[in-house]
């Protein structure tokens, strides 16, 4: 008796049984161990069939307490740790940190160090965008760009290795300038890389830009309007693809960026395809900067006069740079001792990831993968 009653209850469409209504809405877990989440990101998806009704990101799987570590290390000792946040763009992290401490100390790196820093940071921007392009394309189904990108990235890593001995977590800069002088033939290597890389970039574009599958999978997907970007604090290529021409290298120039001639590419539609085009163009502009900087690398010291024991005066400073992923800021409070009283990192990936929900609502599950890829997040930086 009870059996039949249950069965009818299940079949009756007019019933208010919640379990039945829930059956049309499906909540599934994506990640944390999922190849297209670029690390350990867990996204809880609320689906209606294949349509995404809402998402919730669960993060923190890679949380190492970088900010707490910073409070317990001296200024110089903390420098290598920041490389481990955004590990595909470690040079940028180091640059932001060193510059912030320099600001706190009220010193400036000498011109030669500034040029060296710009060259390495722009190389790093290209390397970061290559990792993004390779994995993003792989997520969407194009296998070849991954191999191409990683093959060509190797040339950048070789330069890093020759310059400072490390390939990934480089610890290339020190507070006050650079520790290592450019090796013999450094400029030539950089220029050689530029000549080598531009045709390769065309190759990537040949594979994707007009590829019908790529265009269909990316055009009109994950649209972010400029006002949404600003409200959500989204920065970097994602913001620029929405049509906001904002780049800290131009708006608040740091290092020697004001010496170089380069453009800030922007998109119009703020979709995944535009973000792809913006990043590709950014790599071209990075090549322009590297060429100019290697041509005009000034002579002189590479280290400013910084005391052996770094003890900034009591005070606090916020400083940010344009990292490959967006605005990377450091807020450092000094209490006059050898260790920072507080180090706050404003990570671009963390803030940009917040836009995921807005971008994927109403799209299909497969598009979530494309949108995570296009945000270019690194979970090491999201979780810190």
């Amino acid at each position, binding site marked *: 008796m009870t059996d039949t009653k249950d069965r009818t209850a299940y079949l009756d469409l007019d019933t208010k049984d919640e379990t039945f209504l829930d059956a049309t809405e499906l909540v599934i877990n994506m990640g944390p161990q999922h190849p297209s989440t670029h690390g350990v990101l867990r996204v809880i998806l609320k689906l209606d069939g294949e349509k995404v009704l809402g998402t919730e990101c669960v*993060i*923190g799987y890679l*949380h190492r*307490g970088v*900010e*707490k*570590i910073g*409070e*317990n290390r001296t200024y110089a000792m903390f420098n290598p740790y920041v490389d481990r946040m955004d590990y595909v763009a470690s040079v940028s992290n180091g640059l932001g940190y060193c510059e912030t401490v320099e*600001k*706190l100390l*009220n010193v400036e790196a000498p011109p030669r160090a500034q040029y060296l820093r710009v060259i390495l940071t722009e190389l790093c921007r290209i390397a970061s965008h290559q990792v993004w392009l390779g994995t993003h394309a792989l997520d969407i189904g194009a296998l070849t760009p991954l191999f191409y990108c990683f093959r060509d990235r190797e040339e950048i890593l070789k330069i890093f290795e020759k310059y400072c001995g490390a390939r990934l977590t480089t610890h290339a800069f020190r507070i006050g300038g650079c520790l290592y002088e450019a090796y013999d033939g450094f400029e030539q290597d950089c220029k050689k890389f530029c000549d080598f890389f531009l045709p390769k970039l065309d190759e990537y574009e040949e594979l994707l830009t007009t590829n019908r599958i790529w265009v269909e999978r990316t055009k009109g997907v994950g649209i972010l309007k400029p006002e949404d970007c*600003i*409200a*959500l*604090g*989204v920065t970097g290529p994602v913001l620029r693809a929405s049509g*906001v021409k*904002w780049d800290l290298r131009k*708006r*608040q120039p740091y290092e020697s960026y004001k010496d170089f001639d380069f453009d800030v590419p922007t998109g119009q539609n703020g979709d995944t395809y535009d973000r792809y085009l913006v990043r590709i163009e950014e790599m071209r502009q990075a090549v322009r900067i590297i060429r100019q900087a290697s041509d005009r690398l000034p002579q002189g010291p590479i280290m400013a006069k910084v005391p052996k024991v770094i003890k*900034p*005066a*009591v*005070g*606090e*400073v*916020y400083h*940010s740079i344009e990292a490959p992923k967006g*605005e990377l*800021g450091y*807020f450092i*409070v000094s209490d*006059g001792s050898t260790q920072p*009283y*507080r180090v*706050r990192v*404003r990570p671009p990936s*963390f*803030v940009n990831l*917040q836009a995921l929900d807005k971008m994927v609502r109403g799209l299909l599950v497969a598009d979530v993968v494309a949108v995570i890829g296009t945000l270019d997040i690194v979970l090491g930086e999201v*979780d*810190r």
Partner: protein
Amino acid sequence: MPEETKGSNSVSPSAGGDTPPVEKAVVPAEASASQSSAPLTKAETLATPAEEAKTDRAPATAEKPAPVAAAKAVAAKLGAPPAAKPSVPPKPEGPKPEPWESELVTRLRRQYGSGIKEASTYLGQRYFVVDSSVLYEILLRMRDDELFDYCVDITAVHYPKRDAQFDIVYVLYSFHNNERIRVKTQIKDGEHLRTVVGIWETANWLEREVYDMFGVTFDGHPDLKRILLPDGWKGYPLRKDYPILQQDKEWVQINLGIESGQ
């Protein structure tokens, strides 16, 4: 270092052999210039300023055998014969916050009066310290009237010895004026703040992180829960009374099935 001092030794071998080589470092010009206050007879009898400085400081070494750096610093900073008293080199004064006057400050002061506790610049960076009771109004005004449309960051700093233990820092940026500003407020432990998610959507995760790390509650937040640490975790790691090796052992044992995370 020893080689260096030997070098300076050989330049002026006339100095007494007893004095440690340390003291023979060449004295900067300013030091010798300011030594005009020294007895005239001495200055007349001595040929070079370097020698003058040396003989002047010879008694000093007998009194106080200072380390190289200190002695050099004394010579450079004071320039006077240190025989009078063994002085400690004064610490170089760091930059100080300077009061910041601008139209924006005047406008805000006119409206909020003592709600604006401080308006300063430090190393060229501007910041306000405002009372927590008017914080929300000011932030709203900053966005709507002063065009600070981008909330860069929200964070906190813990000062356990202070009465108002937490500094909450809002870093704002204006796309229109290309201007960055910090708005700070001070709150006591347990005091709540009104959420600014309604002003800037980006505040959602940023406030969650402040809650997660410092235990500061934001009223009206749509989903105030831990973000980087697991939900059941006890304690707020970025507080100063939370040592770096501390962990929520109970959570680790229950959820990870291991004795300790270390």
